[in-house]
């Protein structure tokens, strides 16, 4: 219970924290070059290529379906 209350306090306090990167300082972060997955169709296809040939799956940021591979 105390831990839950502590988390609530920290998060509520955190919401009031002044952001150390101000909104007007985020122009670089908003630049398209900072979006590694700027073209979702092309990116999802490449995830599919990897998923179909590797055992590793998950945490790649795309929703997959079946695979047309053998």
């Amino acid at each position, binding site marked *: 219970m105390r831990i*839950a209350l502590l988390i609530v306090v920290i998060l509520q306090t955190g*919401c009031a924290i002044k952001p150390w990167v101000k909104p007007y300082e985020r122009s670089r972060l908003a630049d398209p070059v900072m979006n*590694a997955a700027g073209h979702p169709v092309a990116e999802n*296809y490449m995830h599919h290529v990897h998923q179909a040939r590797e*055992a590793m799956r998950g945490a790649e940021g795309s929703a997959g379906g079946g695979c047309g591979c053998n």
Partner: protein
Amino acid sequence: MQLIRNPFLLMAVLLLGAEVQAAVLPEDRFDLLRHEYDGGGMEIAGPSVLVRKSFADKVAVSANYYVDEVSAASIDVVTSASPYSEKRTEKSVGVDYLHGKSIYSLSYGVSKENDFEANSAHFDLSQDFFGDLTTLRLGYSLGKDEVFRSGDNTFSDEADRQHFRIGLSQVLTRDLVASLGHELITDEGYLNNPYRSVRYLNSGGGYSFQPERYPRTRTSEATTLGLSYYLPWRAGLHGEYRVYSDSWGIDANSWQLKLIQPLGQRWTLESRYRRYEQGQADFYSDLFPFRDASNFLARDKELSDFESTVIGLGIGFQFNKENWETFDRAGLHLWVDRFQFDYNNFRDIRVQTTPGTEPLYSFDATVTRLLFTLWY
């Protein structure tokens, strides 16, 4: 206080509490992708079309249609079956709803082949915190596969899949963003490929085949750490490291570096290098010592010990026309990725020699993507 005892309710209160507008919906766009994969005896090509449109800056709907035309003569096919052709189509629809600093996303997809059908539903929630420097994402997916076997009307089976995702991205400086994601996936049901076989030594000194046999459950966890850095000359450098393990005994990891470099106002160059390594499943063997050598049997090279590398290059061009009334801009992108796969315990049995001494298998592949985009 009752609220605090329930962690899900507590999380819901924290996620829904803030009301300041900050999160934004994905862009309105139309994408037409032509994709091609050529390597290891497989040729797979087709289109993928995505349309996304938002309304009143509150709701965005999207639809995707994807096709794989497969012509298969891979090493698995030529050593134990006949080359074949097939078609896979995937259709999905989704809706995103923006509420304050939260985005709720729902999507549903169906993937069909002549011997396979997968249905899946996905729910994701994204929430900005701490002056929008932090974004938390939670997600859940539910899937159901139906598996059939061509030429065998008596066979059909099912598999159920569940995904649980959590992710955090954090603005660290005005040039650097970090992200951490974790996904747990559980499968239950028929997880084999119904056509694949394992080989085992027979009494004559040669080898014979028997069908693969996989466990009917699998649980996996993957964690990804990403960093994106804005380079001083206006370019984006993206690093990613992913680590994976599952209940079949497979451990894997990958890392990738990607550079996005604009050239002037219209051109963009992209390059990436990716390295992947995995260990084999507990029940994998290239050559079992005898028939039914263990409860579970696999000789699927995707479950073997191997490494792969990818080197990719891309070029993009953007059209901006001030007198376009319907569209903001358009773009054309071409990417070519070169894959190399090297297997450490999967042997090339097209070579006739003493079983177990055949050369290790390796192959390369080329993946080409051509994308036309309209933003409106």
